[in-house]
């Protein structure tokens, strides 16, 4: 803006060393000046402000700080300068250092310890969250008028119906990939026809439900966490409690019910579409007619494969909804927390789904459904 800020040191016989500021002392000009002033190691007897143009609080702060550190007087100030220096002087909080972060080793050790404690405490609180859901289910079973039909049906749509497109596309492509890879590998042994076994058993027993669970965790589990978390931040959940509406009944239960039921339907849908994808590819590359494919499927896929697949679906749905709603309810403080909790919900859901899937694989083989 105006004249650049500067200062001159001069020796005056009566006052000793005098520091004379010139130009505009404001926020736009002060950056460089401050650097030079900080380096100044000479004692100053007086600060002369006669040649100062515009001054704002930042300029006033610099002048005040200099006068404070050198315990000297300020002369020839303009009226506004006096006022501002006085105002910032009254607002001097001294050297207030920002709280120091502990060193790296302490931080790593303490965050590891906190992580372990957190893992245990969150396991407990998740269990109690599950308990609260069971209690809400029982309460609604006793008093069916409290069931939130509208919310539940709305979540049927959000979790189930609107996922049909993406789950269908994904399953169809997975069916194609399995059939294509299977056909290429099995051709080496002249056993292409067994690709049908591969497609049928793999999609029905494992991949249909697993891929659907991952998709639902990404689509709906994250949405649950973000919705509930934001409602927590804006005190909507507290408002519900004061009105006497239980957040578990009004928010969590419809989502859990929707996720459990829709996972079953989506998993079935995914199995069918994936097999259609496999059949389509085999028809293209092996000239295998569709009717033959269906017939082979009936012969080679045991019925218990279907049971295994379908038994896993509601459990996975439950886990996804539980992780999403639980993480949402844990949000407190700020917007960053919503993001962190949403991530945690998805990661936790997918991780637990895969762990449980491994457990189920062993379990069902052991009981003779191999």
């Amino acid at each position, binding site marked *: 803006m105006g004249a650049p800020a500067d200062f001159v040191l001069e020796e005056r016989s009566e006052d000793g060393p005098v520091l004379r500021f010139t130009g505009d002392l404001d926020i*736009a000009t002060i*950056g460089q000046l401050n650097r030079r002033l900080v380096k100044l190691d000479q004692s100053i007897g007086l600060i002369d402000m006669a040649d100062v143009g515009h001054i704002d609080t930042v300029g006033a702060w610099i002048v005040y700080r200099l006068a404070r550190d050198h315990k000297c007087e300020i002369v020839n100030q303009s009226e506004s300068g006096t006022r501002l220096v006085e105002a910032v002087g009254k607002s001097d909080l001294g050297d207030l250092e*920002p709280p120091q972060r502990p060193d790296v080793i302490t931080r790593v050790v303490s965050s590891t310890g906190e992580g372990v404690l957190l893992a245990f405490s969150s396991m407990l609180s998740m269990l109690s969250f599950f308990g609260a859901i069971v209690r809400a289910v029982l309460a609604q079973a006793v008093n069916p008028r409290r069931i939130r039909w509208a919310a539940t049906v709305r979540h049927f749509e959000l979790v189930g119906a609107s996922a049909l497109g993406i789950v269908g596309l994904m399953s169809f492509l997975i069916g194609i990939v399995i059939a294509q890879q299977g056909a290429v590998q099995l051709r080496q042994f002249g056993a292409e026809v067994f690709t049908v076994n591969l497609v049928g058993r793999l999609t029905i027993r494992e991949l249909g439900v697993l891929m659907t669970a991952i998709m639902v965790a990404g689509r709906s589990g994250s949405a649950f966490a973000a919705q509930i978390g934001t409602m927590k931040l804006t005190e909507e959940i507290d408002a519900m409690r004061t009105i006497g509406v239980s957040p578990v009944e009004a928010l969590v239960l419809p989502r859990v019910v929707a996720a459990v039921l829709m996972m079953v339907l989506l998993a079935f849908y995914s199995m069918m579409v994936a097999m259609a994808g496999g059949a389509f590819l085999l028809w293209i590359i092996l000239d295998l007619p569709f009717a033959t494919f269906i017939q082979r499927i009936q012969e080679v896929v045991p019925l218990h494969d279907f049971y295994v697949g379908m038994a896993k679906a509601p459990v996975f749905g439950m886990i996804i909804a539980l992780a999403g709603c639980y993480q949402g309810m844990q949000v407190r403080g700020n*917007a960053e927390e919503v993001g962190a909790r949403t991530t945690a919900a998805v990661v936790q859901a997918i991780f637990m789904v895969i762990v449980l899937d491994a457990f189920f694989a062993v379990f069902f083989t052991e009981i003779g459904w191999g």
Partner: protein
Amino acid sequence: MSAARQKECDVAIRISGLTNSFGDQIVHEDLALDVNLGEILGVVGGSGTGKSVLMRSIIGLQVPDTGKIEVLGESILDEEEEDVSIRSRWGVLFQGGALFSTLTVAENVMVPLAEFYPEISPKLRREIALYKIALSGLPAESADKYPSELSGGMKKRAGLARALALDPDVLFLDEPTAGLDPIGASLFDQLTLELQRTLGLTVFLITHDLDTLHEICDRVAVLADGKVIAIGTIPQLLAMDHPWIQEYFNGPRGRAAAQGHDEHARRQESKA
């Protein structure tokens, strides 16, 4: 005062022919308003008369359909690069404080400083933030707290400290005393007045608080029917016989606020 500042006329904000609409709903129609340099202008109006939209238009958050808006002689509706310089000359206090929730109060105040004046060293930046926090009437220990650890009144003060970070010439306050207890509100009014006098600010103040209007506003602008229907001191407004203005200032709350103001003034006089 520098030459650049002297060139400007004595009007801080000049609005003419402003029209804002959302779909079919017309909020402002051919609105004109001048805010003088160095005054505290109170803006009042019923709910939904577009007080906040007016403020958002001035600070460039809402692009109006038509109209001219000049702040300190610079048009803010021109190219986007150009309004950067003017942005450093106003400070805004949003209704809820709008503090960045992942930063401490001091870091909140340092954000605009770092953004506009990167040449200022981090140490000086923190010093500036600290005295601004003190100027806004916050205790020293609140500087390193996060917004979620502050009370409603302290959040407003922290928001004010951030609005003052760049030593602005114009300060926009959106309902600063809403949600504060009467003591806190009165203290905030005094703080606004004191800062305005010390720093020579022009204040654009949206409020519903009749006490604020009586205590600190130099002039009051009344918004209704998409226009500024009246502007002036409170006695001047009272002399008009517009039904809404009469209802507003002569309703039970309006009379109580006026009485309180008179008594306060008399006590001050007798003390002197």
